[in-house]
């Protein structure tokens, strides 16, 4: 009742409120949405810890704590209201942690968090103003800065203790696919997450469960994940690099960061289009770029690059797909 829009006129009894639209409000807040994303990621985090050991959990924890810390620090330094309680920094930290290998040293997690929050998010104006997804931009920054450490993946069930770093490197399924050979892991292994990779990308099934939870909670819409994964599926089915079409397609879909990218990174509110048609176009662009980079690029994985490239085109996609105002007559071209 103490809304700014409310005007109380002496002629109207106290029990009636006069206010502008909107009159019906939903309980959803940034905090609640971010909490839903965290809940959807918990199974993935649990699986990552189970497969790669407690060190994986520690890496995620360092990312989360330092992201929240840097958010508070940056906002304090820039004289902005401190909004760490909206959990958006926590989500960035969790996503960044899940995008690191379990062998990542702690200082790399801290540097990545600082880059994500300070450079990509706060310098561009904070939540709602960043052009690029902070967690993904930080992942790409770390990949370019320390390529050796960022691609040092351990074998599944090679559980690391807190401080152990003398792990045995193992090839990820994508690295095998890059050389046009099927990986050692079977399709079922890859669906369940019994293969090498970053902490959060291995289990396609649990990421799917998290994604479906977000869909049910209406935190995300189906457009981006479906068009993203669909495009990858169609392209890899039409142009297989090796073996049977169907097998190759399924491997490409289950391998690497496609699931976590399609459900959790590409659907970031701030860095994806708001229109439905725009979202379909965005997902299509991401999918096409992923296949393009995986086939012809220097890196085995292209999900992060693809999403970042499409992030930079969101303003254009939104302008092209702006819906017609109700009642407006479609303009005739030519003349």
């Amino acid at each position, binding site marked *: 009742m103490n809304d700014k829009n409310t005007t109380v006129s002496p002629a109207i009894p106290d029990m009636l409120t006069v206010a502008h639209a909107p009159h019906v409000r939903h309980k959803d807040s940034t905090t609640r949405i971010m909490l839903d994303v965290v809940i959807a990621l918990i199974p993935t985090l649990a699986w990552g810890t189970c497969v790669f050991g407690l060190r994986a959990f520690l890496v995620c924890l360092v990312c989360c704590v330092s992201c929240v810390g840097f958010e508070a620090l940056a906002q304090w330094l820039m004289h902005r209201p401190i909004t760490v309680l909206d959990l958006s920094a926590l989500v960035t930290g969790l996503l960044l942690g899940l995008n690191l290998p379990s062998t990542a040293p702690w200082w790399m997690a801290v540097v990545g968090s600082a880059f994500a929050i300070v*450079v990509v998010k706060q310098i561009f104006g904070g939540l709602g103003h960043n052009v690029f997804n902070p967690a993904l931009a930080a992942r790409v920054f770390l990949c370019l800065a320390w390529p050796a450490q960022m691609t040092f993946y351990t074998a599944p069930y090679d559980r690391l203790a807190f401080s152990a770093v003398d792990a045995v490197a193992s090839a990820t399924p994508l690295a095998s696919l890059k050389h046009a050979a099927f990986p050692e892991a079977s399709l079922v292994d890859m669906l369940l997450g019994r293969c090498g990779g970053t902490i959060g990308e291995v289990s396609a099934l649990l990421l799917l469960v998290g994604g479906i939870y977000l869909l049910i909670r209406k935190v995300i819409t189906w457009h981006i994940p479906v068009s993203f994964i669909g495009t990858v599926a169609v392209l890899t089915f039409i142009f297989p690099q090796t073996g049977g079409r169907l097998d190759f397609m399924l491997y490409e879909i289950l391998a690497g960061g496609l699931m976590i990218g399609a459900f959790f990174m590409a659907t970031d509110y701030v860095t994806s289009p708001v229109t439905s048609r725009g979202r379909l176009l965005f997902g299509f662009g991401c999918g096409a770029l992923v296949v393009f980079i995986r086939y012809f690029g220097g890196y085995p994985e292209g999900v992060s690059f693809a999403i970042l490239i499409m992030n930079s085109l969101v303003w254009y996609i939104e302008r092209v797909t702006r819906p017609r105002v109700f009642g407006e007559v479609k303009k005739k071209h030519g003349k």
Partner: protein
Amino acid sequence: MTFKSIAKQFKDGIIDNNPVLIQLLGMCPTLATTTSVSNAIGMGLAATAVLICSNVLISLLRKFIPKQVRIAAFIVIISGFVTAVELLIKAFFFELYGSLGLFIPLIVVNCIILARAEAFASKNPVLPSAIDGLSMGLGFTFALVLIATVREILGNGTFLGFSLFGENYSPAIIFILPAGAFLTLGFIVAAVQALKNRADDKNNARAAAEEILAHEAEKTKEQDK
């Protein structure tokens, strides 16, 4: 030409009107050759030498070059000096020649040199033009060394080739890559702008305060009358 005007020209070229950090000219060599401090010094001094020579010659010929073809004439003069500098570097600093490579001939199209020819040397006598070339060249070198210092320390863990942090330091290779050049340049330009804004605010505040004081002094004078 007084000593004061020369000092002002130097301050203008190196700080107030720095070709890279304030005018944002010559971005291509700035981004491409700042992977190490020695490259930056080499590039900066080569450009400075060309800048001084071309400024002097253009200033000498300023009344002789027809206005309609002046850009073409400037480019011919500049490329002549660049060729000379390139041959000198090849003869005496072959290692530097190898690492700078294509970017030495590209000094011809460095917009700082053309901008100084057009904006200064073609309108001023020889001595001020030579000093302008030196100060702008030093400003360019200063900016390159600043960027290269950050990039070399972060991206390679060294300064002028000397290891700084020992063997356990794993450098962030991104700062040697092109992406790191853009990041570093962006942050340095932002810092320079912040410092400039702060200095401007201070000067404005001082000017305003002086005005108020002068105003009040006048008032009291009037009252005395």
